[in-house]
């Protein structure tokens, strides 16, 4: 294990150094500064914006989980995650199209409408799942609310 780790670290550092040398030999220094700002911005974006958002969404889902069944929550969570990832991929595509294409075969679709339709479908799934969950919770022979307030 120890030998393997040492070999891996040495190989990894060498490959990183090769990448850095390729960078400085093929990209102009002022462009490397531009890259550096984007690298820092990526970390900040993740740590300061995305992570708190994900944690907040998780806590909300966890609170919802007190009254709704696990199946409902899994469906809601799946729809939210899929919808978020699709938005993350397609919103830049919409911006790129807005920015103008070199020819009409690049970005040929109306991505705004398509994204709205898909997100609308996912929202429909979420609403149906929540309604089913609430109805089920009300019909439950052992009321959840009582159990919660019994504490």
């Amino acid at each position: 294990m120890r030998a393997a780790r040492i070999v891996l670290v040495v190989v990894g550092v060498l490959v990183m150094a090769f990448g850095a040398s390729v960078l400085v030999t093929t990209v102009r220094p002022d462009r490397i500064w531009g890259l550096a700002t984007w690298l820092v911005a990526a970390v900040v974006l993740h740590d300061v914006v995305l992570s708190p958002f994900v944690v907040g969404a998780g806590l909300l889902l966890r609170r919802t989980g007190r009254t709704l069944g696990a199946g409902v929550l899994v469906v809601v969570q799946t729809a939210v995650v899929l919808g978020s990832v699709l938005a993350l991929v397609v919103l830049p595509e919409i911006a790129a199209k807005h920015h103008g294409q070199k020819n009409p075969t690049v970005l040929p679709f109306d991505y705004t409408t398509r994204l709205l339709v898909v997100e609308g479908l996912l929202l429909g799934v979420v609403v149906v799942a929540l309604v089913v969950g609430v109805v089920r919770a009300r019909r439950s022979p052992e009321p959840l609310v009582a159990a919660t307030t019994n504490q």
Partner: protein
Amino acid sequence: MRRLLLDARAVMASPNRNARSAVVWGRLLGIAFVVCFGTGVYSHLLQDPLPWMRFPTRPVQLYQFTQGLHITAGIAIIPLLLAKLNVVMPALAQVPPVRGVLHLLERLSIAVLVSASIVQVGTGLLNTYQWYPFPFPFRQTHNAMAYVIIGSLVVHIASKLPVIARYWRARDAYDAEGRFVADPTVGSELLPDGREARPAVGERPADEQTVGSYPRGLTGRLLRWVDGAAAPAAPAAPAAPAAPAAPAASRAERQFTDRESREVSQDAKNGAGTTGVGEEAEAGGASRPAHTDRAARSEQAGSQRGPEHDDTRSGPRQRIARRGFVAAVTAATVGVVALTAGQSNRLLEPLNVFGARQRHVGPQALPVNRTARAAGVLATATAADWTLTVVGPDVTRTFSRAELVALGTATADLPISCVEGWSQMASWRGVRMRDLLASVQADPASPLRITSLEQRGGYRATEMGAEYAADPTTLLALEVNGQTLDLDHGFPARVIAPGRPGVLQTKWIGKIEVIR
């Protein structure tokens, strides 16, 4: 600061955020990275070969496959990377933030890996949209960062090797009830609070050390609100999983709470919680503070306790939370790939909702990257006196279109495959390159330089290896799908060769030279 970090860890606690999940998502992400790296380096070398390099010309769809895979795997990385970053989030709030020089270097290497990965995937996606809002050149940076990422990934694997080995198999990571087995001996930063490797733990107040208890202050109140735990005095209400928790289980939890809270305050005074527990000891995971302490003490006393002594509901709850997370990330990965991969995969074409390209859209039902107008060849390419110059080692000849046809034509079914991932098969008709070379008494297996009528552009002049020049399917194409080439597809003549990126299939050709 310390308090802030501890509060952050408490908020982030979740059954999905453990060392085993990090290994599972890390494996998938690692495979995707290696696939992207291999296909990317191949594509780069096709465009900038080292002098001694020769490439396979069969199967003719090789590049279509490798580059389609590159883009598809790259898109799949987006949800996988988000899942992995979500799983390892508590490691951001390590206490203390730095444990020494090695730990600092390790965290720096992870920062490089994370930021380079985000930028690499993000700019790669933008490149498929042909949008360049970033202040650096795409191709050179993408190539250089690929090595930085793979190198820092190897360093990351090296530093986490004991954790990876320990949690490689599910049966070593979860007990029979489905609870995560926390093993503090392998140095993971993703164990339930109080059990991760942390030398300075003895300085913490006893109640803070208690695994999974609610922190004091605003964070604790927030978490109690989330879990509906009413008793602020009790430090031991379950720090429940973030993602889906079964209501039945929550109900059961609550019945335990009163008893638990008394036991925990007892246990906490004993200052236990970081005792070196062997791998067999059941660890309560995020949600059962008291049991880990009891388990640790009972093991010291030499008695093996079965998992049934713990809250048996905790395991299924953790399991549901984990499976819910796996379901969500799987759906996101499959969804985002299925709705975009139709640009390079015929089978997924009907599902192409968000792809940057659509097959059969464009002149002669073929997409275009660079138009004749953009290339500035509207006049030169349509000139009636266009001729092709072929320069052999000893003989130079010029051909009009009619003279080219007189050399004899052949057809070949070859894909046009772009570095940006889209591809489409087409039927091309034209003069075989080796026939053209024979007409100037050159060896068919000669490396070539092919020059376009374009005035400028990175791919105005391209080079072709001898293996492509000699291949019987490599054509100087004059027609596509039974029609004369459209101006945007390279009229009067273009190169089409098997297994090469679209940027090297030079359009609007003016001159072909044998390189000596």
